[in-house]
């Protein structure tokens, strides 16, 4: 059984249809990449999957781990192991990073009927993951993302992912705003988590991320539809020819 099965997904915002029939299947263990021009609906797809209620699903269905994903609330999807690394991580003044992470982990554990983590259980894992992502401890006592640089925010998303250990991770342009060193660190963090049980949906504009996180499949989303799918070589082709090439193919003329 596939981990994620998207069938004919249509979604709109404020009455504008943005996703116009997306079909996509991911199996556990796979890494898929979605590429596409600005405004083509990549983030919309990610947010719909993470169950943001401001996006209205007008048609289609999504099975996640055999369950109806579209019937879930954001917190249910999260507790079922879905994780979204935001394109624009949100600043939450007044809530400490470490405290927030532990609260999130405990919410998920509670949902799964597991015992709460106390600080003693939490800290060693936390320290290890911080090290993996080469993040400064001092950031962790600050409020969530508040005053973080763009790169720090993206790394913080990956840190959260590493702590929450999702089954399906959607990374929405985690590479944008990162310099090459930070990119390498983030990619290393992601690769360390690749496993047979886990799948990734990596949204990006750039081949350079895919040099580090090599995908099994690449899809091109244009105007709310997947117009092409292929192997990693498709990303290279896109880099060379641009989206115009796929868009031209998408138009039946």
């Amino acid at each position, binding site marked *: 059984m596939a981990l994620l099965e998207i069938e004919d997904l249509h979604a709109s915002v404020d009455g504008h249809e943005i996703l116009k029939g997306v079909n996509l299947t991911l199996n556990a263990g796979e890494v898929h990449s979605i590429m596409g021009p600005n405004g083509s609906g990549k983030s919309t797809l990610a947010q719909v999957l993470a169950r943001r209620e401001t996006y209205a699903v007008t048609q289609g269905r999504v099975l996640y781990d055999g369950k109806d994903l579209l019937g879930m609330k954001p*917190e249910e999807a*999260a507790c079922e192991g879905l994780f*979204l690394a935001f394109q624009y991580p*949100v600043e939450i003044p*007044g809530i400490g990073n470490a405290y*927030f992470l532990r*609260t*999130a*982990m405990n919410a998920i554990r509670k949902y799964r009927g597991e015992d709460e983590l106390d600080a003693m259980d939490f800290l060693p894992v936390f320290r290890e993951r911080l090290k993996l992502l080469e993040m400064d401890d001092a950031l962790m006592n600050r409020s969530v993302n508040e005053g973080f640089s763009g790169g720090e925010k993206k790394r913080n998303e990956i840190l959260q992912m590493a702590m929450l250990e999702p089954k399906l991770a959607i990374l929405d342009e985690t590479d944008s705003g990162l310099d090459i060193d930070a990119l390498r660190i983030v990619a290393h963090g992601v690769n360390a988590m690749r496993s047979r049980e886990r799948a990734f949906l990596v949204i990006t504009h750039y081949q350079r991320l895919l040099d580090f996180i090599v995908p099994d499949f690449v899809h091109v989303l244009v105007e709310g539809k997947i117009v092409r799918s292929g192997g990693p070589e498709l990303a290279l082709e896109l880099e060379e020819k641009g989206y115009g090439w796929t868009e031209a193919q998408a138009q039946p003329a």
Partner: protein
Amino acid sequence: MSGAIEAEMRRETMATVAKPMDNYLEAYGELRALERREPEWMRNLRDEAWELFREKGFPTTHDEDWRFTSVAALARTPFRRAASHAAVTAKQIEAHRLDGSACRLVFVNGRFAPGISDARSLPAGLEICSLARALDCGMEGCAPTGIEQQLGGYADVHRDVFVALNTALWEDGAYLRIRRGAAIKQPVHLLYVTASGDEARMIHPRTLVIVEDASQVAVVEDYVSLGEGAAMCNSVTELVAGQDAAVSHYLVERENLASFNLSTLRVELGRGARLASHSMLLGGGLVRNNVHPVLAGEGAECLVNGLFVGEGRQHLDNYMLVEHAKPQGSSRQFYNGILDEQAHGVFHGRIVVHPDAQKTDAKQTNRNLLLSDEARIDTKPQLEIHADDVKCTHGATIGQIEEEALFYLRSRGLDEVAARNLLLYAFAAECLERMHEAPARAFAEALIRKRLLEMARRAHPAARLADQDEKAQNWEEVG
């Protein structure tokens, strides 16, 4: 409508207005009949205050200081003095204890309740007793010298009829004196309990705190209800801080929703004295919180910190008046409001810089979260600056819980109630961070957590999310 009926109705309204005013006269008469052994100057103060109240009556919304708060419902209610001691047991107030306090004085319906108070082992340098006792001329060693300059010497009966009413009708309250140089490490807990009965009760607690030069203390005034009945609690606290004294004052309002709570904190700060005033309005139906520090000595400092949390039809009015009278003073006002349902909040922040007060540095910030379309905040800065070399700033914001932040937290597994609660708590916690006495802060934190959790639980998620789209303007500068 016929003229006769109209006249009849007018008589009706007049009757309902006239009758409640009689209840104050009655209370005043009862008090006089008690023939308390008060010094003559106190009796004169009361008489003068009574005349002022009788002449002026209650304010209306035409009065600039009461523009956003109508006390018509209060004026209509025939509150009475509680006739006798209500039997309140130690067990009933156990839930209201402040862990780690130096001592606790409990007042039930405005009268000292020694049986449930705890002032057995007092730290050196702290004198505390009931104010009525301090003024009882028949008691040995009481009526401390100088008290007549202090009691009634600062709270102005001419400015505010509620202060006049309190001065005329107070029966008891706390009297504290911190001896020169003494540092009282643990907070003093003053618990004012209104035990409601069949009829609407009124109490007028009066507190006097003398903090001598270079001494230090934290006082927690805590207002609670026992029972759900209507009551008016109209308190006045005068706090006099000597040279280089450091005082923290906490006001905790957590009475029932049928309560009218009016409080006035009047602080006189000597040279180099520091005040931190923290107000937490968590309960009460109609609340008016007056905080009035006067920086009367050079280089005095004050922090005026507050949080008000309202829902239902609560009306929470904060009237700040910070007066800079001498040079080099600094004041900081920070008030945060959280209002849900039809709650109405008011923040009126007055800063007066007198001609002498050069090099004044005054700042005021009021931030508000409105959680429903019907919640309302009136925020009004009022700067009156009569000196030329001063720094004065103010700002106010009104916002909602951001859908984006809520979604971010939920996408990490927190359910909507928990996410909402965490965001509200983070907003409220800004006020907690300014509190430096650990026991008082822990006490405040527990009360705030409890209050916000109740609110988060009661929120109607579906309706709320629909609201969000329309109100996407979020943090809007209004001042």
